[in-house]
């Protein structure tokens, strides 16, 4: 290889590296903008607050449920619409009941103690709720503890009732739009009930 060829190759490498850097950079920017819009939506619904989150857990105010279930309805319909067009890939997590049920119960206890979701605690901090900061530190500590216990959990809870990457439509043996319609109807009826009860 002479010098010219090497330079051409180096140049090619440089261009592709630049491409990767730009792509990563673009992903980061999309992440930031998406998060910012989400933060505004959460803040405007006033669902970031401790009082609001605890009021939901105490069956006093279901604003959070209204927000989340509306997100699920639109997200579910939109994502599966794009999926049918072959425009998106689904990210299906394995159903491991040992992990999901135990983890879900622990999450609920932790959520009630903290009064913020670990993710939206960032938003609560943005509103000036400084107790969320301790929750965020706790969440990092919890993640570290999980990393320590991961080898043990892998041999125990994460082995119990592992059904792999299944979905409700597969399980029921029906088209996904039937499940989507069913869930939407149940959610809409729940909304009517919540409004009727003034929750």
């Amino acid at each position, binding site marked *: 290889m002479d010098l010219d060829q090497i330079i051409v190759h180096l140049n090619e490498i440089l261009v592709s590296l630049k491409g990767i850097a730009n792509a990563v950079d673009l992903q980061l920017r999309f992440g930031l903008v998406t998060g910012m819009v989400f933060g505004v939506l959460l803040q405007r619904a006033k669902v970031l607050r401790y009082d609001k989150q605890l009021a939901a857990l105490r069956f006093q105010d279901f604003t959070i449920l209204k927000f989340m279930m509306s997100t699920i309805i639109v997200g579910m319909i939109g994502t599966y619409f794009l999926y049918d067009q072959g425009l998106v890939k689904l990210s299906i*997590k394995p159903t491991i009941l040992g992990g999901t049920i135990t983890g879900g119960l622990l999450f609920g206890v932790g959520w009630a103690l903290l009064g913020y979701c670990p993710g939206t605690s960032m938003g609560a901090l943005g509103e000036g709720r400084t107790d969320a900061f301790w929750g965020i530190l706790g969440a990092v500590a919890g993640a570290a503890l999980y990393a320590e216990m991961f080898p043990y959990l892998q041999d125990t809870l994460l082995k119990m009732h592992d059904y792999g990457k299944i979905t409700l439509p597969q399980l029921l043996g029906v088209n996904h739009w039937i499940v989507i319609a069913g869930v939407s109807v149940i959610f809409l009826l729940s909304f009517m009930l919540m409004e009727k009860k003034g929750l």
Partner: protein
Amino acid sequence: MSKTREGWNPYLLGGLAGLLSVWSTYYTGKFFGASTSFVRAAAFVEDKVIPERAATLEYLVKNAAKMDWQMMFIIGIFIGALLSATLFGDFKFQAVPDMWKRHFGESAVSRGLVAFLGGAVAMFGARLADG
């Protein structure tokens, strides 16, 4: 509806959040999430403080410290909430939430300790459930 409960319509805002998530999935292939970033943060701290130990932990190696879409997403949530709260006059420094105060008193230390514990338990559970 009492005055303290007022926010903008949660159905509309929740629906918009749904659209945002669909848009995000379409343009970047990213689904909303937060908890992996806390593992990356733990990896970041342990790499600095106890690097030998951190290198032996498969879970931290797998979720190594790095700036990625999700990390920017949760930083964005902070900035978006801060901007919105400031703009609409909702920003308030508060160490002890009102409801907590009514039941458990004014101590910011007790509140901080329980918040820390709650954050740890919730994150452990979220990771265990693969959420």
